[in-house]
């Protein structure tokens, strides 16, 4: 077990790669009541073409299967694992993103039992035709709920515009139609390919004794046998640099219009600290251009073009990155043009002053510190960073060494008009 000390953050992280390949991280947080544990596989909705473990040809699996599998992991021959967690005073949950599937619990008691329950249930799949069929009704309702949600629709509408081929454009839960094709055999194929310990990370944060907890995980894993790991072979289609579609409009039963503008970036070529620097440059750039202290925000707000739903987001994951800007507005066309102009100006270095940079950086440092109050943030983000070859604890030191030039260079390189797209949600015509 190795110990990493992050002086400035006053945090320590213990790490061990077990014999079976599982990465285990433990961050002791004294003074907290809650322990939060995540067990995550480096597998998400985009991983829909791969060579199944033990075979030699690529297969394509139905849309929404990673999320479906996440739902079905909870059901066992002797009932639902939620029951067991409840009995042990733990609140359990799971989520599926583009690139990860995470199982988790939080609890203030029975930490060892709950940790074993978490590891054991994720390592013991049990799928039957009957339970798979039953889940289709439940997930169908989940999909319909999102179909009625204008924020989700405009978000995914924009991603669909940006990408021509890449499976990031497919809704994480799939569609009511695509999930009807899912069988228990599909689930086992995906499970056997992506849930090997070598492809997974366990993260424990809370008032725990690290040596004790590490021993518990070691013992638990030593009792189980796993096949020899084979490297996961995924395949992704070639994605052009330009946006697939410049614009799209969605009519919904809503009062407010929404406008989102986004641009995609070529998949990152760098790794480690350089990648972290790139990611931070992206978020500083957006803050400087569109943050609440920017001239853009002030002008657009006083002109009534935006309200406090206005925001921005950068997503940089394995194999794709994009940025989104927008919110509710009465004048989607005007807002779209303003955002695009602001971005194109930034490519020329306009709006990128030293003063704005300092302020954005300070804000980012403060928000990072605040985020370290949250066990959820630490566990989820640390895992995400680790899968991407980054270290979450380097965020503040890297921010402190960054300069305005990092941001202007990023803007020069990444902003291209042909990579832009926009998506509106508009009220249905009442006529």
């Amino acid at each position: 077990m190795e110990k990493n000390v992050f002086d400035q953050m006053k945090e320590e992280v213990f790490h061990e790669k077990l014999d079976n390949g599982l990465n285990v991280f433990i961050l002791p947080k004294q003074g907290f009541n809650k322990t939060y544990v995540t067990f995550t596989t480096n597998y998400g909705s985009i991983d829909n073409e791969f060579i199944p473990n033990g075979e030699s040809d690529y297969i394509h699996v139905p849309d929404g299967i990673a999320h479906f599998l996440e739902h079905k992991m909870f059901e066992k021959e002797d009932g639902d694992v939620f029951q067991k967690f409840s009995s042990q005073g733990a609140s359990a949950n799971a989520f599926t993103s583009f690139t990860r599937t995470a199982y988790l619990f939080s609890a203030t008691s029975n930490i060892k039992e709950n940790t074993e329950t978490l590891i054991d249930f994720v390592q013991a799949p049990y799928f039957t035709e009957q339970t798979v069929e039953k889940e289709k009704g439940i997930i169908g309702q989940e999909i319909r709920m999102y179909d009625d949600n204008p924020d989700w629709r405009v978000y995914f509408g924009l991603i669909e515009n940006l990408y021509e081929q890449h499976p990031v454009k497919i809704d994480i839960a799939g569609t009511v139609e695509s999930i009807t094709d899912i069988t228990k055999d599909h689930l086992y194929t995906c499970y056997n390919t992506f849930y090997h310990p070598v492809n997974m990370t366990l993260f424990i944060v809370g008032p725990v004794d690290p040596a004790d907890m590490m021993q518990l995980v070691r013992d638990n894993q030593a009792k189980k046998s796993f096949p020899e790991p084979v490297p996961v072979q995924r395949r992704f289609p070639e994605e052009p640099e330009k946006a697939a579609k410049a614009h799209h409009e969605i009519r919904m039963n809503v009062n407010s219009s929404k406008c989102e503008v986004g641009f995609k970036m070529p998949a990152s070529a760098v790794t480690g600290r350089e990648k972290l620097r790139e990611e931070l440059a992206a978020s500083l750039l957006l803050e400087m251009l569109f943050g609440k202290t920017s001239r853009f925000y002030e002008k657009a707000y006083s002109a009534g073009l935006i309200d406090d739903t206005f925001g921005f987001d950068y997503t940089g994951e394995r194999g794709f990155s994009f940025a989104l800007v927008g919110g509710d507005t009465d004048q989607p066309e005007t807002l779209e043009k303003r955002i695009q102009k602001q971005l194109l100006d930034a490519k020329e270095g306009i709006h990128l002053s030293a003063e704005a940079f300092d302020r954005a950086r300070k804000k980012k440092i403060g928000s990072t510190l605040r985020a370290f109050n949250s066990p959820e943030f630490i566990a989820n983000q640390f895992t995400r960073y680790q899968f991407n070859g980054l270290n979450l604890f380097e965020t503040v030191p890297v921010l402190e060494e960054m300069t305005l030039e990092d941001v202007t260079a990023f803007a020069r390189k990444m902003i291209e008009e042909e990579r832009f797209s926009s998506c509106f949600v508009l009220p249905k015509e009442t006529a």
Partner: protein
Amino acid sequence: MEATREQTFQTSGCSIHVLETEKYKTNTIMIKMRAPLDKETVTMRAILPHVLQSGTENAPSAAAFRSALDDLYGALFFADSAKKGNEHVLTFTMEVANEKYLHGENDLFDKALSLLADVLFRPKLKEGVFPEKTIRQEKRSLQQRIRSVYDDKTRYASLKLVEEMYKDDPYAIPPGGLLEKIEPIDNASLYTYYQKALAEDTIDIFVIGDVKADQAVQKMKKHLPFEDRTPSEMITDTGHAGEDVRVIRETQDLNQGKLNIGCRTSITYKDPEFVAMQVCNGILGAFAHSKLFMNVREKESLAYYAASRFDSHKGFIMMLAGIDQKNYDKTVQIMNEQLDEMKKGSITDLEIDQTKALLKNQLQESADTARGMVEVLYHNIASGTSRPVDQWLQDIDAVTKEQAAQAARTITVDTVYFLAGKEEK
């Protein structure tokens, strides 16, 4: 579990509650202003937090104010309005990094406090009142916010149920304000109302973090000089039930129907039976092992969410699920059956044990965030109840199945609200 106890200091204008703890990397100040919910004032109260953060004497625009926050290492400031029973609560929160984690910074806490004081006591004025331009902008924003409630269908359905069920009861007033009361607001009348609220609301200040209580109190008194007043007791009024169950159906162009069943109970947070009702609601619908989740979702695959919620300052319970319209009758029937099971006391050992374990877990977890701690404390402070966390935890353990069933027998279904979606294709 860390035994963190707050220390409370009464001044003639407000109460100051301090929690000394080193577990966070930030320090937090929260100010709560409470007054009865009223149709005539709620919209002004809802707009005030937005007006106040659009400029102070020292930082005379929203951008200048936000810049001042960013310069304090992204100090977080937010203000919101919420409902507690029949009362309206404005909350102002300032959270700032603890400088011991930063290189060469000091006085961040003091600077953040004086910024917060500027917002409340030295807002930007023009000719002695709020600037007209600010009011115009914020009226438009508020209009937009209220109109967009319609777009979030789950929230919309809950609000409509409450509106229908509590006609002529202040509880029906949405804490975010009323659309028809926006127009009459002007800069002078809003300023006059703000002065009144500042002078008369019941004020609680919370300081949480790496601070010394006596120093914190001195600083609060100096920077936040609330005038003398008599704090008001919170009104708890559970309202009056109608004769029969009312059924209301609204149809919209939607993929999923939203079913919300509103119920009343006479038990509120102040009552000794409150904890039994909390356990009752837990068994019925608060968790993934609860009766509603197990029967509506897991057994029948009718819904993705199926749950119940208990607003303890009103005695309001809501059962809710998102379903296909064709499954309306079946779902209503299952929900009613599960409530009847509770009343009959058909509760297993497992169900009550799981519920107690999770309720205790929730309570202990809430102490891990500054905001969570304040919310737990404020339940007691606002309602004039004494239920310290350790006592609360013990009380949960002591609840019997019969007590949970007794609590269930106080529940009556009042109004069924269904926001119907379109027919199955």
